[in-house]
Every structure is written in structure tokens, then in C-alpha cells.
């Protein structure tokens, strides 16, 4: 091999190495950005409630209100969502017209709660559990279900029930996923509606304070325990139903269940719960 050939070979190797190094240096680590947000978010809540363990925030307001917690524990001894879970199980295994069932769409016997929400790179959007259930139905020639309550909430409750204890770890690993995450983050912090209020305004700045007869729950843990049986509703409902109710309360027009905005918000809020565990369904006032 001539000196010239060796020099060219070395030059080529050098260029390849340089390209690899610069690419890895330029690549944005989106998960690291999200993890930094999670640390700040959870630190803020911990500073407000220093005596509450991280895992206990999954119990919502009952993590910070001892009197209400006692009553809630008694309610949970005979959970009002039990019937919904049973009905959800039956619906999960009920054959479609084509002979298949929801069980065919979800592995692990349906214990898949912590697979959702996730960012589907092919579809370019956030997929929630309720969206995946409706996707399965429509893919099998069935009609999609109401995203707020009823059968969809019951099926979701069953899946949540058999997935209890699964750790939350939302992944944000691409520019597109991070964009959806940021949209959810913006929705969470931006003030809206006639009362000019944000999710963060109530559930971070005013968490633990009195709002009429109720104590405002902290934002950490909000998405762990849905769907919930609310005594106010008298039935089980989805997280997006709760979002719609909150928007209504602050004088903003509620968005549709499974709208892109609410899915992105769920994506952001669940990411903030990274490190906690799913513990739905639950009962709430």
C-alpha cells in the first residue's frame, strides 16, 4: 500500500469518526429534558408537602388530608367501582361480531396500563389507553365508545385494576414526542377560560388550600388512579371527563374526550408522575 493510499484511508477513517462524534454531540436527549422537568415538578410538590412520601401522592388529595383519608379508606373497603370492574372484565372478553375480542388486542391478559400513554412515532400522536381500546374496536368492525363514561370507562377500569402496582415511566425519545409533550406542558401551565386559571394555578400554587368545602389536590399523582368512581357522578368516568369538568369550572369550553389537546395533557401529566405506580381505579368525591 502506497503512502498516498494510507493517507487517504486515514483521512476517511478520521472523517467517519468525526461525523459520528458530531452527530452524537448534536443529538438532543429529549428524555433527559423531561427527566429534568420531572425532578423540578416533584421537588416543587415535595417542598409544599414535605411529610408526604412520593408514592403516596398516587392517592390524590387523600395523601394530604388525613381526615378525608380516613373516610376514603372506609369507602375503599367496599369500593363503589367494583361492579364497573366486573362489567369491564366481561366487556373485555366479549366476542366481537368477527369472533375476536379486546383480549386479542392487548397482551399480558390486558395488564397493560403502564404501556399508556405513549407516543406512536408512526402515527405521530399520543395514544392513550382509552384511544387504544377504541382503536381495537374500530379495527374489528365495532363502533367506538363514548370517551367520557360508560363501557369505555369500565373496560379501562378493568385494565387498570389488573395492572395495579405497575411503575409509571413515560418515555419521550424523539423530537415529535417532545413536541407533543411540550403542547401538554403548555396546556397545563397556560391560563384559560373566563376565570383565567390554569391547571398549575390550582393544583400546584394552591394545592392543599381550601376551595369551598374541598381541599385542592396536588398535581403529582393526578393520572395514576383513573378511571375513577366519583360520588358526584354516581358512576365511573375517565380522566378526560375530569379534564372537561375542570375546564367547565373555570369558564373554558371543554374539549372532546380523546382530543389531541387532552391526550397531550395526559402525556405530560403522566410523565410528571414517573416513579409513581398506577393504582386505579379509585373512588373520589
Amino acid at each position, binding site marked *: 500500500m502506497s503512502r498516498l493510499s494510507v493517507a487517504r484511508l486515514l483521512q476517511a477513517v478520521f472523517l467517519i469518526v468525526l461525523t459520528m462524534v458530531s452527530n452524537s454531540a448534536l443529538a438532543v436527549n429529549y428524555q433527559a429534558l423531561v427527566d429534568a422537568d420531572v425532578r423540578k415538578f416533584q421537588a416543587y410538590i415535595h417542598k409544599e408537602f414535605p411529610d408526604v412520601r412520593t408514592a403516596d401522592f398516587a392517592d390524590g388529595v387523600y395523601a394530604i388530608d388525613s381526615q378525608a383519608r380516613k373516610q376514603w379508606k372506609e369507602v375503599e373497603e367496599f369500593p363503589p367501582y367494583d361492579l364497573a370492574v366486573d362489567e369491564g372484565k366481561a366487556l373485555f372478553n366479549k366476542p366481537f361480531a368477527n369472533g375476536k375480542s379486546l383480549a386479542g388486542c392487548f397482551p399480558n391478559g390486558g395488564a397493560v396500563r403502564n404501556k399508556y400513554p405513549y407516543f406512536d412515532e408512526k402515527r405521530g400522536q399520543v395514544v392513550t389507553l382509552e384511544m387504544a381500546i377504541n382503536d381495537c374496536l374500530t379495527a374489528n368492525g365495532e363502533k367506538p365508545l363514548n370517551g367520557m363514561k360508560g363501557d369505555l370507562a369500565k373496560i379501562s377500569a378493568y385494565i387498570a385494576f389488573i395492572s395495579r402496582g405497575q411503575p409509571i415511566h413515560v418515555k419521550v425519545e424523539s423530537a415529535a414526542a417532545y413536541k407533543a409533550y411540550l403542547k401538554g406542558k403548555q396546556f397545563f401551565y397556560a391560563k384559560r377560560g373566563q376565570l383565567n386559571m390554569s391547571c398549575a394555578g390550582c393544583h400546584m400554587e394552591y394545592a392543599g388550600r381550601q376551595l369551598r368545602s374541598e381541599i385542592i389536590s396536588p398535581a403529582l399523582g393526578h393520572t395514576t388512579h383513573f378511571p375513577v368512581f366519583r360520588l358526584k357522578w354516581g358512576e365511573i368516568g375517565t380522566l378526560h371527563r375530569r379534564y372537561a369538568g375542570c375546564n367547565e369550572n373555570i*369558564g*373554558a369550553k371543554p374539549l372532546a374526550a380523546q382530543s389531541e389537546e387532552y391526550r397531550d395533557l395526559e402525556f405530560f401529566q403522566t410523565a410528571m408522575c414517573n416513579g409513581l405506580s398506577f393504582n386505579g381505579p379509585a373512588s373520589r368525591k
Partner: protein
Amino acid sequence: MKRMIALVSLLGIMPVSTALSADQNQGSSLIDQAEAARKEASSLGYEWRDTAKLIASARDAQAKGQQEESDRFAKEALLQGREAVAQAKYMDRNWQQMIPKQ
């Protein structure tokens, strides 16, 4: 004489009917403006809860000939629509400032 009476009557009615027509036009215009503002707020994802209801009430009152009532609803809806658009634009630029500080 009859012609004179008819002419005087017509002249007497004309200003009233013209004014009424102008009011109705203003009402329609207010409703249209409110609807345009509502749609813009909606497209930005910031529509307020009651704006569409106010516009519906304005239309309803107008259909019943209650122009003053209709204008009142339409003005309120227009104000809400404009406020919502301003809120959307402000929040789009400044939402990061709303993140609570430690």
C-alpha cells in the same frame, strides 16, 4: 286630501321603520362579529364556556324582535370572544412565565 294623508303617514312611518331596520342590521352585525371572534378563539383552543350560549340567546332574542336584548347578549359574546383571543395570544407567548417558581 287622501293622497296627502297617505303621504304624511308614510313619511311618519319611514323614519321608524328605517331606524328599526338599522337596529336589526346592527344586531346582525354584532352577532356576526361575536361569532367570528368565537370561531377565532375556538381555533386557538381558548373558547370560553358561555360564548356560544350568549350568541344563541342573541339570535333567539332577535328572532322574537327583542333587539335591545339581542344586542346586550351579542355585545357580551363579542367581548368574551375578543378576550379569549387576547388570552390565547398572550398565553402562547408567555406560558413559560406561568410555571410556579420554587
